[in-house]
């Protein structure tokens, strides 16, 4: 039982229940931004840059404004105020002011009575550009250039951010290591692929107030950015978040189209709706950075990991977005779940003239995790130690600090590993399956809420606040700024409050969509909502509970402390016969005083080191996970079928196991895309596949059977012991599949996605290498093919072999 004095068996928390908005979703009755129709509303579209990098000489809109039905045409010059999600790297404007920096950049926006009029007008806008040299390769952006992409580039380069961290003595670790595994990994950019395209409705009213309905993960940041760009005080702006059809990080920045719609409404005095088509979603991107990672891992002869050296070059595309944080996360989130005493990280984020990268589920950690788990596997293989065994030997214990001073609390990684080991029959099957079939393991580690809030004064303001109101009708209204984006945060709020008050969730009404009503919450990113909003909700509910038990005491004459609220009744613990129905207690509580109101809030405790960048990656808790994947590889074609995954995730406590399972299954689907098929493909900087047909998100046919194991380590600070389950579960699937491919055909591919053509090439190269090799480590299999370790691509262009052993 958790330390959070739950003094009766839990009746809501821990129970499987459909999300509270599920019915609205599956029946189509939910209202998304695009479903909003206001009287007299205009529609708007954006004219986007056709240039990769160019100075705007002039924009001639005279013919456009003449098109019948057109109400307003706006360009960037009048709104030069910059915005950006990270305060120290604001670089975007509502519309391009002097330059365009990628194909898709926002040049002009037009509102009119219908789309045909607007599109006709867009075609009549004449933009004169002076083309500038464009930079598409991140390596080029490390160099000095005549014309930087924008001023945030360091010196004369297009480097956005440099991170250098060094803990312990990595050089010494390399010198004394018995074995070093290394690789150069490349990761194509991937994008979120959420169902609902970006959409916004803006209405500026005669009284000078602006309301913006928008598909966002963070109403509060949109609120701030609108105020900055438009020069209107925040209290005169209201941001409403209707139902959101997925975000995965792609809707956590404030965006130019939100500003553009607001400006158009202010110009016309009419409501304006702007909805993206799918290509615009791809161009707006903010997905995972295209990355090349060079990683080295050292170990002793008995399989103790001793050092980790990471160098990452991440391609930020045209804007900063969350890039400062992404740069850190690509390194620092690799310090666990293994206890590695020597750690060095060199990270570089650069600007290129491509669609901007940003935060995407598993922000910053996914690519490095793939690399690290691959190297662990290589070491295990070389030392002849079972890969799960080797991992178990190296786990960081609970309630310790990592080498870079992350405070680890609850930690169920060992149990995760043991569970999937057993369920997958690992010990007898790994290494023993016929050629073409394999099992692979991967672990994960992720923050449960960033302890350092963006845009905030951590010493003073809470990260989440929740208000509760109960009036005569008995219904409980919960106000929170946490954004329900499909992940289930409204359900978490309802469950937590229901649990504390002993009421069914059907009596809890969560209002999470309106900055006029909701107290500030920092939004849905960094897997923070269950932990932070959940704690705030619990605290608010406990205040209400105390008022109710006090009322029960007044009614019965027994002490308030003796009462528990359960099943809609106040029960006296010492006298089971003494019971008062909830409504009676409530009416007693509000007599003479009116509706009960309460608030609770959460702020993470002080923690971490004091070096530069010490706060990046700090969290009040961390999630852990371990997956085993089973794959079948067709050696003739290079096709990989992942047909089964055993997934164990430590989320502290599953407030709603059904929702946790959903997150894990969805994560596996998403991760399989990145490891096997998805990638944003460019030809000379031009995105070749900006459509859901050509960008290969797995279909249900690719979805494996998933067996979920929820590990509950009961976090001391989480609400009812809970931690996150939204992002961490993505991490292990990629390396589990990569390692399973190795177990199946003895080949490693370091370049993602591992498409059939890439894998086939590696298998063929291995065949050629085998033909000349005299011995093979794992020997021949039944089919006569060997599973000898072969590393394709990246690793081979390194100085020295992918694996080296020191002679002693």
């Amino acid at each position, binding site marked *: 039982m958790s330390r959070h004095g739950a003094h009766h068996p839990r009746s809501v928390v821990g129970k499987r229940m459909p999300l509270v908005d599920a019915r609205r979703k599956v029946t189509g009755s939910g209202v998304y931004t695009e479903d909003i129709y206001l009287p007299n509303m205009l529609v708007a579209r954006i004219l986007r840059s056709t240039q990769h990098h160019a100075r705007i000489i002039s924009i001639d809109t005279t013919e456009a404004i003449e098109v019948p039905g057109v109400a307003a045409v706006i360009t960037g010059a009048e709104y030069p105020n910059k915005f950006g999600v990270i305060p120290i790297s604001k670089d975007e404007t509502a519309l391009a002011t002097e330059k365009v920096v990628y194909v898709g950049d926002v040049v002009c926006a037009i509102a009119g009575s219908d789309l045909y009029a607007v*599109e006709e007008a867009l075609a009549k806008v004449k933009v004169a550009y002076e083309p500038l040299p464009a930079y598409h390769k991140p390596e080029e952006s490390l160099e000095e250039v005549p014309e930087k992409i924008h001023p945030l580039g360091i010196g004369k380069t297009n480097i956005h951010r440099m991170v250098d961290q060094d803990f312990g003595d990595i050089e010494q670790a390399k010198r004394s290591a018995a074995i070093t595994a290394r690789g150069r990994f490349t990761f194509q950019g991937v994008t979120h692929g959420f169902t609902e395209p970006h959409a916004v409705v803006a209405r500026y009213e005669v009284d000078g107030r602006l309301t913006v309905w928008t598909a966002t993960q963070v109403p509060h940041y949109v609120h701030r950015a609108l105020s900055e760009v438009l020069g209107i005080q925040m209290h005169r702006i209201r941001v409403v978040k209707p139902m959101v059809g997925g975000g995965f990080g792609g809707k956590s920045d404030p965006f130019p189209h939100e500003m553009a719609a607001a400006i158009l409404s202010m110009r016309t005095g009419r409501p304006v709706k702007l909805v993206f088509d799918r290509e615009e979603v791809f161009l707006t991107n903010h997905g995972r950075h295209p990355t090349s990672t060079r990683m080295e891992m050292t170990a002793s002869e008995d399989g103790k990991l001793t050092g980790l050296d990471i160098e990452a070059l991440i391609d930020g595309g045209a804007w900063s977005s969350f890039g400062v944080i992404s740069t850190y996360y690509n390194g620092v989130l690799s310090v666990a779940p293994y206890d590695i005493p020597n750690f060095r990280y060199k990270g570089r984020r650069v600007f290129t003239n491509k669609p901007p990268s940003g935060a995407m589920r598993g922000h910053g950690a996914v690519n490095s995790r793939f690399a690290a788990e691959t190297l662990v596997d290589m070491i295990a293989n070389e030392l002849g130690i079972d890969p799960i065994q080797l991992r178990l030997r190296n786990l960081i214990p609970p309630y310790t600090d990592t080498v870079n001073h992350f405070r680890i609390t609850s930690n169920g990684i060992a149990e995760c590993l043991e569970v999937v080991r057993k369920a997958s029959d690992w010990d007898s099957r790994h290494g023993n399956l016929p050629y073409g079939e394999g099992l692979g393991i991967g672990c994960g580690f992720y923050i449960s809420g960033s302890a350092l809030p963006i845009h905030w004064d951590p010493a003073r303001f809470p990260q989440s606040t929740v208000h509760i109101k109960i009036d005569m009708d008995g219904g409980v209204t919960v106000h929170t700024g946490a954004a329900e984006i499909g992940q289930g945060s409204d359900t978490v709020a309802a469950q937590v409050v229901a649990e504390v008050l002993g009421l069914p969730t059907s009596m809890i009404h969560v209002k999470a969509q309106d900055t006029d009503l909701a107290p500030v919450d920092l939004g849905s990113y960094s897997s923070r909502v269950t932990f932070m909003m959940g704690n705030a909700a619990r605290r608010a509910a406990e205040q209400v509970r105390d008022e109710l038990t006090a009322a029960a005491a007044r009614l019965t004459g027994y002490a308030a402390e003796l009462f528990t609220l359960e099943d809609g009744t106040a029960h006296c613990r010492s006298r089971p016969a003494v019971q008062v129905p909830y409504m009676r207690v409530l009416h007693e509580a509000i007599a003479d005083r009116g509706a009960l109101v309460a608030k609770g809030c959460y702020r993470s405790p002080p923690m971490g080191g004091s070096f530069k960048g010490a706060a990046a990656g700090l969290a009040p808790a961390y999630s852990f996970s371990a997956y085993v994947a089973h794959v079948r590889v067709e050696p003739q074609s290079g096709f990989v079928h992942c047909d089964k995954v055993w997934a164990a995730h430590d989320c502290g406590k599953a407030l709603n196991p059904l929702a946790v399972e959903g997150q894990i299954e969805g994560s596996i689907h998403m991760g399989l895309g990145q490891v096997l098929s998805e990638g944003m493909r460019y030809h000379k900087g031009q995105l070749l596949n900006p459509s859901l047909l050509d960008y290969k998100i797995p279909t249900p046919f690719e979805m494996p059977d998933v067996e979920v194991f929820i590990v509950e380590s009961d976090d001391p600070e989480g609400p009812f012991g809970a931690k996150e389950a939204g992002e961490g579960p993505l991490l292990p699937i990629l390396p589990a599949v990569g390692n399973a491919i190795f177990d199946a055909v003895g080949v490693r591919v370091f370049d993602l996605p591992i498409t059939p053509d890439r894998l086939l090439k590696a298998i063929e190269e291995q065949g050629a290498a085998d033909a000349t090799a005299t011995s093979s480590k794992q020997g021949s299999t039944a089919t006569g093919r060997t599973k000898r370790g072969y590393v394709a691509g990246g690793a081979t262009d390194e100085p020295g072999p992918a694996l080296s052993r020191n002679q002693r």
Partner: protein
Amino acid sequence: MNLPPFVLHQPLTIDEAVATFAQHPGEADWLAGGTDLLPNYKWRLNAKPHVISLHRVEGLRDLTPTHIGAMVTLRELEGSAELQARLPVIPATARQVASVLLRASGTLGGNLMLENRCFYFNQSEHWRRSWEPCMKAEGDRCHVVPQQELCYATFSSDMAGTLCALDATAQLLGPQAGREVPLQELYLFDGIRRHARTPGELLIGVRLPECAPTWRTGYRKLRLRGSWDFPELGVAISIQIVDGALSRLRIVLNALEQAPRSLDSVTKPYVGGPLSDQAIEELAAASFERARPYRNTSFPPHYRRKMVPVFVRDLLRHLRDS
């Protein structure tokens, strides 16, 4: 994305349809299920001011093992018990087209007359403006094979491969006359002209040889995902073995070039002989030699080419041993 404005015609008979088209020479398109035409229209790819819907036209929905009307949907082909019993390769091929939803609208006629595809063509107006439109759209050069005057856009219809292997005949009706041509001959190796057919000629349906059910015919499709991806290679093979010798052998490579290619000169010498393992290897190797994919689909061309012998070998073995 919105459709460009056009006039929609909804004729009731075949004759009326053909006559309506003839009134708008060069300015009309046929519309069947619309799953190919309308996405292209939304991208403003060669959209026409007149669209003639075949939905209400009578006489285009025959479905027998010897005659299939152009307006039969792919779902109907998939579910036809008669075809399943006599020519199971047709439902099996149909099942691999696009996705369930698209197959519910998509028709055989639309599938056989599918617009050719290319990475540089199937893109939005904004995309084409920021790159440079090619000659299949509004430009004047090719980004795939720049030196050439020809367009290499890939023909990606699954049904066409199988029906060519089955020696299907296309029935066409134009304003002057009707005619029947072997389906294979209808296709041209030119990504823009595509068909030896005047635009006003309506595909009424396809005829299949009476003896086709006695052949063993199969289809293999290369695509990354198990649903809705277009083929990046299709191999259709039809054989007949009488007394241990091949009395018929047709190999069609599809979705590699601008049209399906029947490898008749490769297969001819093997007719009359046994389909030995060695023959299979030789046929696989020869098919590889004849395969010429271009760099305009998702998989790299070298990979698509490499898969040709793999598919040919597997399918020949499968047909021989089944």
